[in-house]
């Protein structure tokens, strides 16, 4: 029974494909998968917006949206209708074609990333050998869309927001790649399905997820930091810092184009959480061998939603960074740690099984983290702010 539930979507697709002539089946099968992804993730986006607003409200001891529908759950529908009925304003001096294309390019490139994510056992749209590479190629193109939006708006806030976004995304792209490379070093494959399979075995009922290794844990933390920056989420939401840039690169967007940017941002969050889950959290595999009867896709999506919850939690906690702090953090702290983590991963690989590699690898990472941290903190002189003139 649980086998059937686990494969329900795959079987459903096969059943539907049987009605079609054999020549059409591959194309229609892919199209069906695309439709499923294009319907599912925006629906998840709609739910997440209301949960985010409610979660943030609770963090600030408020109630949050509770007027539209039961517990405010229909709020995204009201928001959607509102953004659809709003006037679509294109500035007179804007480059109309690029201005129109930017949100479309953003959403399309973000959606492309979902193509290679394994969302359950046998549930991947395109099982590419170089899935990870494809994912990062698509993830990097979102920067283009952001810059298109900022440039074509012909607005200083938009342009500054776009410049910040590009600087930030390129900086953290390096970290994102380097922290993921450790996983590739371990599994010897760029295929995301193979990466999940490499983690999907258990000893004493416990999974072999990469996060439970020293290099995996460090890699995951750095991946999470880079992912937050890559999706322009708080505390790295400088590109849309409303206190200084109105709304950043989408200042000049209104109505449904603005909604598309919003959608793109959340979809990027889902896809990068999905990739993090795949790389470090065992993808669709269950956290305990005894829990394997729960369908694999349910595990994937619950891990994804947990990551989203952490995103929201961080947004409710942390203030926005300054541009120089952001850059210093990426290039002077996270990047060296990433490079060190590559060494540690290599060490782990060649020390073979045994307790020695656990001790050695953990010790190197902890010492490096503590040392660099102390060094940073000593130079920073962190404490209450002192005002030189305004006392």
């Amino acid at each position, binding site marked *: 029974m649980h086998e059937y539930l686990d494969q329900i979507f795959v079987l459903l697709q096969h059943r539907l494909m049987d009605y079609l002539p054999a020549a059409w089946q591959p194309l229609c099968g892919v199209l069906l998968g695309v439709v499923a992804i294009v319907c599912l993730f925006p629906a998840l986006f709609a739910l997440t917006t209301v949960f985010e607003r409610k*979660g943030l409200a*609770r*963090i*600030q*001891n*408020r*109630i949050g949206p*509770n007027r539209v529908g039961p517990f405010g759950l229909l709020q995204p529908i009201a928001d959607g209708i509102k953004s659809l009925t709003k006037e679509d304003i294109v500035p007179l001096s804007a480059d109309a074609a690029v201005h129109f294309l930017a949100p479309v390019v953003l959403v399309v490139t973000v959606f492309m990333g979902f193509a290679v994510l394994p969302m359950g056992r046998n549930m991947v749209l395109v099982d590419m050998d170089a899935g990870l590479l494809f994912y990062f190629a698509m993830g990097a193109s979102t920067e283009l869309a952001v810059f298109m939006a900022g440039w074509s708006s012909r607005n200083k806030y938009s342009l500054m927001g776009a410049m910040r976004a590009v600087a930030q995304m390129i900086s953290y792209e390096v970290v994102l790649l380097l922290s993921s490379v450790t996983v590739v070093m371990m599994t010897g494959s760029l295929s995301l399905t193979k990466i999940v399979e490499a983690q999907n075995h258990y000893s004493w009922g416990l999974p072999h997820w990469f996060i439970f290794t020293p290099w995996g844990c460090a890699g995951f933390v750095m991946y999470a930091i880079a992912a937050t920056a890559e999706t322009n989420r708080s505390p790295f939401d400088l590109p849309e810092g409303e206190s200084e840039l109105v709304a950043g690169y989408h200042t000049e967007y209104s109505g449904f184009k603005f909604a598309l940017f919003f959608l793109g941002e959340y979809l990027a969050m889902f896809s990068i959480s999905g990739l993090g889950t795949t790389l470090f959290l065992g993808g669709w595999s269950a956290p305990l061998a005894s829990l394997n009867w729960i369908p694999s896709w349910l595990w994937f999506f619950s891990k994804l939603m947990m990551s989203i919850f952490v995103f929201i*939690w*961080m947004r*409710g*906690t*942390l203030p926005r960074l300054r541009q120089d702090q952001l850059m210093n953090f990426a290039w002077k702290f996270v990047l060296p740690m990433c490079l060190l983590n590559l060494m540690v991963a290599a060490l782990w690989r060649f020390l073979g099984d045994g307790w020695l590699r656990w001790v050695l690898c953990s010790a190197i990472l902890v010492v490096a*983290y*503590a040392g*660099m*941290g*102390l060094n*940073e*903190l000593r130079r920073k002189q962190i404490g209450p702010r002192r005002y030189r003139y305004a006392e």
Partner: protein
Amino acid sequence: MLGEGILKGMAETAKNFFGSYFSAERLTTVEYPEERIASYEAARVFPFLIFDSKNTADPADWEAGMRCVACQICEKECPPKCIYIDKSKDKKPDAVGKAQFYPSRFDIDISVCMSCQICVEVCPFEAIKMDTVYELSTDDRFGGLLLDRKQLAKSNEYYHRIHPTEAAEVDDRLSEGRAKTDAKMTAGAIAAAIRGAEVPAAAKATPKPVAEGAVADVVADAAAVTKTAERPTGAGN
């Protein structure tokens, strides 16, 4: 240790997140249209006109019991000039039966009113007081926000309901003034002697909860007492 502050902060927000589901004092939101906080006694929004319903034949007859005698002091003192008064040509008996002028028009434009309460402080007849009604939204932003005599007139009982302490003080002051007037009328005493006796009475009537209004109150009270004192001579002529 680096990152310690972030963990502390996240613990704090987690405490807030879960705490708001369990502890009522964390979640202070009052969901307004369904539930509301009881009005404070010191609350004041816009002015209204008081009418006394006790002495008139029909308790609901706001026009007969109106305390306002159209002296137009409030109109002149109003800083944003939102009060419009037309004084009547004829005189009508007021709440205590004296023939008085009355406002043939008394409008307050609450879109202009800044709720400063100066009209209340200058009124010698305790005729204008501050209301606590705040749900005044209307779909007609000109006519709907220009309140006329009928809309402004509210009974003394209503005043007692919204500001009990203040209303009791006002009633004491008014009855004291009336008692003095009556005493003067029956005894037919010398005007100078009455005036001499009333100065301490005016000083005694000053205590009031609103501190910044105290000075204006003294003036208003003194005016009220002297007015009530002068009334019989005016009526007698």
